[in-house]
Structures are given as C-alpha cells and as structure tokens.
C-alpha cells in the first residue's frame, strides 16, 4: 500500500496518464479549431489518441547509421522533460505538486528539453533532411527562448518572486495582461514558436524538408515525441494563463482561460503563413526581444520609483 500511493500519484494523478490524456484533448481542440477556421469538419475527438496507439503498435525501424542509445533515449528524455515540467505549474488550477523558490527557471529549462532532444535526434540520424531540420530547430530555439523567458520574467518581477505558485497567487487579483500587454503577446507567440506551430513551423516544413529532425523516427519514438509536444502545449498554456490572465484557482478557471488562449493561438495559426527561418530569427530579435526588454525596463523603473 505504501509503495502504491506514490506510484499512483506519479503515473495517474496528478502527473502522468491524466496529463497525457489532457494534453491529447488539447491537441484535438487545436486541430479541430484550425479545421473549423478552414471551413473543414476536422478530426474526431479521439484522433490524437488513435494516432498514438497506432504509432505504439507499429514497427520501429532503427537506421544503420545512428547511435542506438541516443536513438532510443532521446524520445524518453523529451517526454520525461515535458512531464517533469508539469510538476511545478498550477495544472488544472490546483497547487503545483512540488515547488521551491526559483522553480520558474527550472520549468522553463525543462520545457526546452524536448526541443533540444529533437535537435539532437536530428543530428544523430544524420540524414540530410534530419540535419537541416535539426539546425532549424536549434536556430529557432535560440530565437524564441530569450524573449519567452523575458516575457515570463515580467510577472515574476512584479510579484517579487521566482516561485510559480507565489506568482500564481499574486496574479489572482492582478490581471497582468492589462498592465503588461506586450509581455503577454510575446509570451503567447513565444509559446507558438516553442511548439513549432505555424507560422513558426519551418523546422518541420514538410514541403521542403520532409519531416524535419524526426524524418527517420517511426513507431514508438515518434509517438513519444508527439506526446511530449502535447504535454508541452498544455504546460505552456498553463504558464501563460496563470501569469497573465489573472491566475488559475480551480478546474473551471483553468479550462476556461487555457481554452481562450488556445483559441487565440489557433486563430493566429490559420491566419499566418510560414516564415522563413531567417525571418523568424529577425522577428524575435528585432521586435520581440527589444519590446520585452523595454517593458522590463519600465517595470523596474516603476517598481523602483513608486514603492
């Protein structure tokens, strides 16, 4: 019995299985909304689940050239990183499963672990499409990571804490989207860059480079990367919603706020076309980073002069 409880906590609730299923549900909402915006009917509600089961039941081909340890280890690391990051965010509006001062930074770095793994996987496969996909993935990582981090630092500075739980409690009576609109927009678009959604899907542009870094992956590895991405989606949405949209303090507010955010993201997705990789980098460093830095400066000045 004693060993059973932590196991259930770890696997089923609040982490693990529930998280994966909710992530799949959000992925379905994303695909369905995009389909509706394009005047299509869109996938059925179990589609991401069916995809994952099918991929797990398929043969996994190991290319002759790869390092097998990396080839099998990277998908696991990606999924583990995404799942671990969920421990520190107020998922479902509940108190985070674990928290300590400074967990904001840990969460952000855990969230970029899947992207790093995709990049390494592309390098490991050393096919030409995988390599180009990997370089694009990593280039894009350098483009959005700093502005995204800075955009999440704004609320942290205002709340005077680096602990997600404290910030979440602070934002429950301060709607920071009103005072820091720039930070909100940069965080939202940064999240889209993180998830490689259009217009930032140059790393997996299937019209140019087949499937990017994951070209050689089949079966289980691919499924794990995909699940990792949907977990990343839900954790990212949760972070942005709790920082900018007045905090999360229960399941209804969690569902409502994250789905509103997702709606905005799908609108942008179906509205915009794919950017070239140099345009992506230019956009982030020329506009995103500068705007967020200016806003950070304003926050620091206001905090310094208006106690």
């Amino acid at each position, binding site marked *: 019995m004693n060993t059973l409880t932590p196991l259930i906590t770890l696997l089923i609730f609040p982490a693990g299985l529930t998280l994966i299923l909710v992530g799949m549900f959000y992925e379905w909402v994303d695909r369905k909304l995009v389909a509706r915006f394009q005047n299509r009917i869109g996938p059925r509600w179990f589609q991401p689940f069916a995809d994952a*089961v099918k991929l797990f039941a398929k043969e996994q*081909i190991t290319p002759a050239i790869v390092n097998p340890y990396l080839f099998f280890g990277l998908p696991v690391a990606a999924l583990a990183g995404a799942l671990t990051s969920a421990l520190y965010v107020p998922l479902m509006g509940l108190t985070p499963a674990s928290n300590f001062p400074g967990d904001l930074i840990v969460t952000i770095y855990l969230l970029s672990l899947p992207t790093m793994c995709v990049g390494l996987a592309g390098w490991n496969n050393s096919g030409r*499409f995988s390599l180009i996909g990997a370089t694009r993935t990593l280039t894009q990582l350098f483009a959005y990571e700093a502005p995204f981090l800075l955009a999440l630092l704004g609320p942290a500075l205002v709340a005077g804490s680096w602990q997600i739980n404290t910030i979440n409690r602070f934002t429950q009576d301060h709607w920071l989207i009103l005072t820091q609109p720039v930070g909100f927009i940069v965080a939202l678009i940064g999240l889209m860059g993180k998830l490689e959604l259009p217009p930032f899907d140059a790393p997996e542009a*299937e019209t140019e480079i087949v*499937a990017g870094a994951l*070209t050689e992956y089949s*079966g289980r590895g*691919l499924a794990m990367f995909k699940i990792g991405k949907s977990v990343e989606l839900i954790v990212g949405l949760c972070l942005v919603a709790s920082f900018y949209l007045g905090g999360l303090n229960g399941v209804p507010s969690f569902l409502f706020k994250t789905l509103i955010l997702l709606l905005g993201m799908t609108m942008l997705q179906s509205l915009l076309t794919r950017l070239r990789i140099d345009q992506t980098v230019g956009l982030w460093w020329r506009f995103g980073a500068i705007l967020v830095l200016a806003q950070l400066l304003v926050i620091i000045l206001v905090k310094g002069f208006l106690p």
Partner: protein
Amino acid sequence: MNKNNEQFWKQIIKKVRTWARLNSIWAVHFNSGSCNGCDIEILATLTPRYDVERFGIKLEGSPRHADVLIVTGPVTRQARERLIRTYEQMPEPKFVISVGSCSISGGVFEGCYNVGGSVDEVIPVDVYIPGCPPRPEAIIDGIVQLLASLKGDEPRKMARPVNVEEIPA
C-alpha cells in the same frame, strides 16, 4: 483461469490495435512516373472540400511515418528502384494503394521505351483505384475498401523483402 485471462487481454489489445489502425491512416504519396493528373486529384482529395482529416487520414512527408503508400503512374525504369526503396523504408504494417489506370496496367504509357510496367509487378498492392484520373470520391472509396479489408481477421500476407541491389535494371 489464468490462461483465460491472458487470452482475454490479448483479444482486447488486438481490438484496440485494430481500432487505432483503422482510425489513423497516414499516407505518403509517391509519383512513379505519372502524368500529374492523378497527383492533382490526390491533392484535391486533401483539400477542405473533401476533408479526409475527419477520417483520420493525413498526408505525411516521410515514409517512416506512413502506413499507406499511394502510388500514381506507371513505374518507369528510373523510378523502379526508388519505389522499392520508399516501400522498404516504411515500417510494418504497411499498405499500398495504386491510383490511376497507369499504375494498374501501364495505361497510355504501356510499351514506352522507358516504362517498366505496373506497380504490382514491383511491390505488393492492396487496393487498386481505376480511372484516368480517378475522382477524389473514388480515391476515398478506395481507402474505405482498404479499411474494410483490414477489419477481417485473416492474416495478411507479409510483404516479401526485395534486395535492391539484385534487381535487374
């Protein structure tokens, strides 16, 4: 009792697997020498008007991700080896749909100096969709027939391995 239990779970797992396979079909498209008529019809099948994503059908870029290989056109001597390579790159279980009269019999290109013949002379084909070119409705119907054949319990014949180096040019 234990044995029964095991049987039961095996049945359940098999059911779930078949269900997932039927509801999530990722296709990769290969042009082995078609006149592009069939390719345009395949693209038309993927447009919002026909919206195959509601059946879980998705066009993938990489053969490693795909379940179904859609081949159009007669197999030219140039494309023959590439077609086999693409087929070999796909993970099991894999299926082949040959679209258009040319891929079934060589069609109007039959007898050309550069044309080897039909698709099923090179790789095993599961479903044939005739037409020059077939309409998107016909292509969707072909995929539905493939799904119907997957539902059955009889074991599918495994694709025989082909060694690319040994194929006469």
